[in-house]
């Protein structure tokens, strides 16, 4: 009995830690609709700063003062970020702010490395709470109980704040209906800034409070991101009690799950998230999003026109340059261009779905990596020749997208995005865990092109053919009835249903189409690297793709190509420098501020007339 009580309390204590961080993310999202990736970095900073302060301030009170102080400090840093960066781009297209929150992650990583050094810092036990009490014969660490108490205090405090203060009421109103704030005559700027402070304060509080349990390390930021997104989504975006219940659910399932199924540690929470989203579209305590809340912010897209003659000439010139490149460029230049082409195709497949399709995928790496794995598995298990296996990439990815997409397209907006993320993580966990079939994290190696494509130049032309071809197919499809119908479903699902379009099915097939093209990119990738590893299915790969699209510009068809090329090239040039992350992060922020419409969007605005773009306002 004591064992089960203690196991339950252990789960409760890890739920507490998770809740503190996740509630902050939920509040920020609820009000500002920003998917804030920097949240994990604030959590990490909270831990580092608290670690340093605890070394200075002694004793029981010293410890807790350190925790509060570090949370305050991080809250102020977050305010700085909000005021300097995010404030300037609230009017940018949907999700664009996500890129802006990606830049600071990279900067904070390098700063933390520079200030606190590379080694994991393991925190000392909290003064006065360094022992364990015994519950029915089973020891239970005191600090775990303190964490539970802390989250109860925070939960109560948040309840008071949101129900008993004017500011809290405003925040709640803003969460439910953004238009309401301006109607209430509230200064929206400062409301957002305040919310950012509170949310980031909570992130850092969570980070600081777990110093005695873990300490501070440089990988904390990414490790916490997936779990807190899961918690926020399961609980319902914007809901504090939801975040608490979700954290509790996940943690308890986890602590009891490992008793019966010890390998479940990777996959469990994503399975739970997928199941919850399928059964309860808006999470446990969430409310349906009002139509338009996740829709197009800013001016709608211009109608599609065929390329002007000048633009066609430019395209032909670039293609011509790419075709003669092997004559004078080094092997490595070919490799770099191949990477650009492959990632451009991947980004274009995301853009297809996210821009004209209106379905944001946070998990497109599942189809990129899925395609690559389909090729690798069929090659290593059945020894099929490359000429056949290559096409398993798009086919396999398409099948996977049909399966996942069926569920995803029945949701919209950020819940659709989160469901794609959940499925992608489940797929990743299966590949990672199922070592007998997939090689697990050791991957599958030795997947090289057939001898006739053995030389760099030959495979370069092959990549160019399928990569550029794939991008052209995606683009061409947007002009076909299929592409128009997909865009129609995005513009107005209501209208589409009333002119006889089966919206779900149209979106489902579009999802699969996009997945197939991502799989084609995966096929090209696996043969160019000769191997495939679960990394290529991971969250990081999905987000890379998303960043490329947003960097390039969602509302232009050339955007993903521009974004992927720029990102790949920047990454290659900069990553040979020390502290490349500070540089890349700063560059991303600069680009975001200079070109809120994305790189291609900027060029379109500037030089659109030159290319014969009509604008009608």
């Amino acid at each position, binding site marked *: 009995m004591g064992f089960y009580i203690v196991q339950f309390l252990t789960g409760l204590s890890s739920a507490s830690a998770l809740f503190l961080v996740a509630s902050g993310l939920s509040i920020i999202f609820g009000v500002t609709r920003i998917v804030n990736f920097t949240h994990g970095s604030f959590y990490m900073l909270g831990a580092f700063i608290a670690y340093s302060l605890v070394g200075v301030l002694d004793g029981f009170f010293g410890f807790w003062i350190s925790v509060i102080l570090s949370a305050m400090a991080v809250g102020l840093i977050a305010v700085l970020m909000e005021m300097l960066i995010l404030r300037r781009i609230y009017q940018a297209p949907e999700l664009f702010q996500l890129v802006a929150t990606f830049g600071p992650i990279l900067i904070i990583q390098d700063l933390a490395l520079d200030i606190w050094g590379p080694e994991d810092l393991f925190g000392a036990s909290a003064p006065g709470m360094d022992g364990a009490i015994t519950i029915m014969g089973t020891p239970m660490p005191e600090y775990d109980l303190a964490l539970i108490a802390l989250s109860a205090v925070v939960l109560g405090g948040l309840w008071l704040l949101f129900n008993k203060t004017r500011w809290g009421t405003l925040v709640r109103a803003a969460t439910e209906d953004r238009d309401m704030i301006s109607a209430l005559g509230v200064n929206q700027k400062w409301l957002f800034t305040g919310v950012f402070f509170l949310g980031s304060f909570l992130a850092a509080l969570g980070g600081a409070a777990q110093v005695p349990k873990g300490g501070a390390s440089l990988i904390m930021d990414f490790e916490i991101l997936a779990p807190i997104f899961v918690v926020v989504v399961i609980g319902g975006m914007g809901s504090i009690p939801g975040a608490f219940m979700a954290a509790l659910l996940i943690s308890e399932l986890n602590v009891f799950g490992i008793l019966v199924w010890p390998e479940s540690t990777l996959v469990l929470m994503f399975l739970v998230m997928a199941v919850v989203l399928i059964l309860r579209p808006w999470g446990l305590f969430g409310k349906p999003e009002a139509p338009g809340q996740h829709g*197009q912010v800013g*001016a*709608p*897209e*211009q*109608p*599609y026109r065929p390329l002007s003659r000048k633009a066609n000439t430019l395209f032909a010139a670039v293609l011509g340059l790419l075709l003669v490149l092997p004559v004078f460029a080094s092997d490595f230049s070919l490799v770099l261009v191949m990477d650009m082409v492959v990632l451009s195709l991947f980004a274009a497949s995301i853009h297809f779905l996210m821009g004209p399709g209106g379905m944001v995928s946070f998990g497109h790496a599942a189809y990129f990596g899925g395609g690559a794995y389909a090729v690798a598995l069929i090659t290593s298990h059945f020894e099929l020749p490359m000429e056949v296996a290559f096409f398993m990439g798009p086919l396999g990815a398409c099948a996977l997208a049909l399966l996942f997409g069926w569920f995803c397209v029945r949701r919209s907006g950020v819940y659709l995005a989160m469901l794609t993320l959940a499925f992608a993580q489940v797929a990743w966990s299966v590949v990672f865990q199922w070592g007998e079939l997939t090689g697990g994290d050791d991957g599958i190696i030795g997947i090289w092109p057939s001898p006739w494509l053995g030389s760099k130049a030959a495979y370069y032309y092959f990549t160019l053919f399928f990569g550029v071809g794939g991008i052209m197919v995606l683009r061409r*499809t947007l*002009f*076909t*009835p*299929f*592409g*128009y*119908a997909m*865009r*129609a479903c995005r*513009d*107005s699902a*209501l*209208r589409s*249903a*009333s*002119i*006889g*379009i*089966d919206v779900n099915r*149209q979106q489902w*097939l579009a999802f699969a189409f996009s997945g197939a093209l991502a799989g084609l990119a995966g096929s090209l990738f696996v043969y160019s690297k000769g191997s495939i590893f679960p990394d290529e299915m991971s969250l990081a790969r999905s987000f890379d793709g998303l960043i490329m699209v947003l960097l390039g510009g969602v509302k232009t068809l050339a955007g993903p190509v521009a974004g992927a090329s720029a990102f790949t090239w920047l990454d290659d040039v900069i990553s040979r420098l020390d502290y490349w992350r500070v540089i890349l992060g700063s560059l991303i922020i600069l680009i975001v501020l200079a070109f809120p419409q994305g790189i291609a969007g900027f060029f379109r605005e500037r030089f659109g007339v030159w290319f014969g773009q009509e604008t*009608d*306002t």
Partner: protein
Amino acid sequence: MTDMGLAVRSLEKSFGGVIAVNNLNFDLPVGQLLALIGPNGAGKSTSFNILNGQLKPTSGTVKFKGVELVGLSPKEIWRHGVGRTFQITATYASMTVCENVQMALLSYHRRLYSLLPIAARLYREEALALLEHVGMVDQENRPCSVLAYGDLKRVELAVALANNPTLLLMDEPTAGMAPKERIELMALTNKIVNERGISVLFTEHDMDVVFTHADRIIVLDRGTLVAEGTPEEVRNDEHVRRIYLGSHHA
């Protein structure tokens, strides 16, 4: 009545105990303009959304040309020849006026999954003919996002006509329009009804529009049908005066 019209029988809809539509019965013969009026919350939109297939009724039947519409999806109802316009216009902002109509034609001709042709080149002539009909042909190449509201309503009308409907459901067709535009739009609707021999069911707040253009009027109050007849009859109905016109002028 004939088999060709719309017949609504014993229609009921309740939301968690609140009755929105209560035992609604009416007929709409071919070629008629029927107005559905009533104060806010009378159940007009609910009835509309049931006819359109967006809501399932709690009980009752809706027969159109002898076919039961209850239980069919909006898509299937549309295939049976029911067109729809919305209170707040629903058009494709990122497409041109002509493309909006072409979209409906693509659906009508079952080309939605077509992956080869260029959509903008398909059914262009047909679309232009429909736009001609509603007087929007000169703006066919403009994006819908920049149109004046009255023009959007016309585009919607052209879109709704794309599948050769025999019944048109129009939710507040003149909402948000200037008086002159209202008259023009309803005159246009009248003309189309006469030319094409279709029936129209519309809701409307503007009583001038209703009494000038409707052939017949039915009045809902709190989900129940309280009066039915020609504009003249309804205008003189005591009940209507009391519960509807009375509150309207209050």
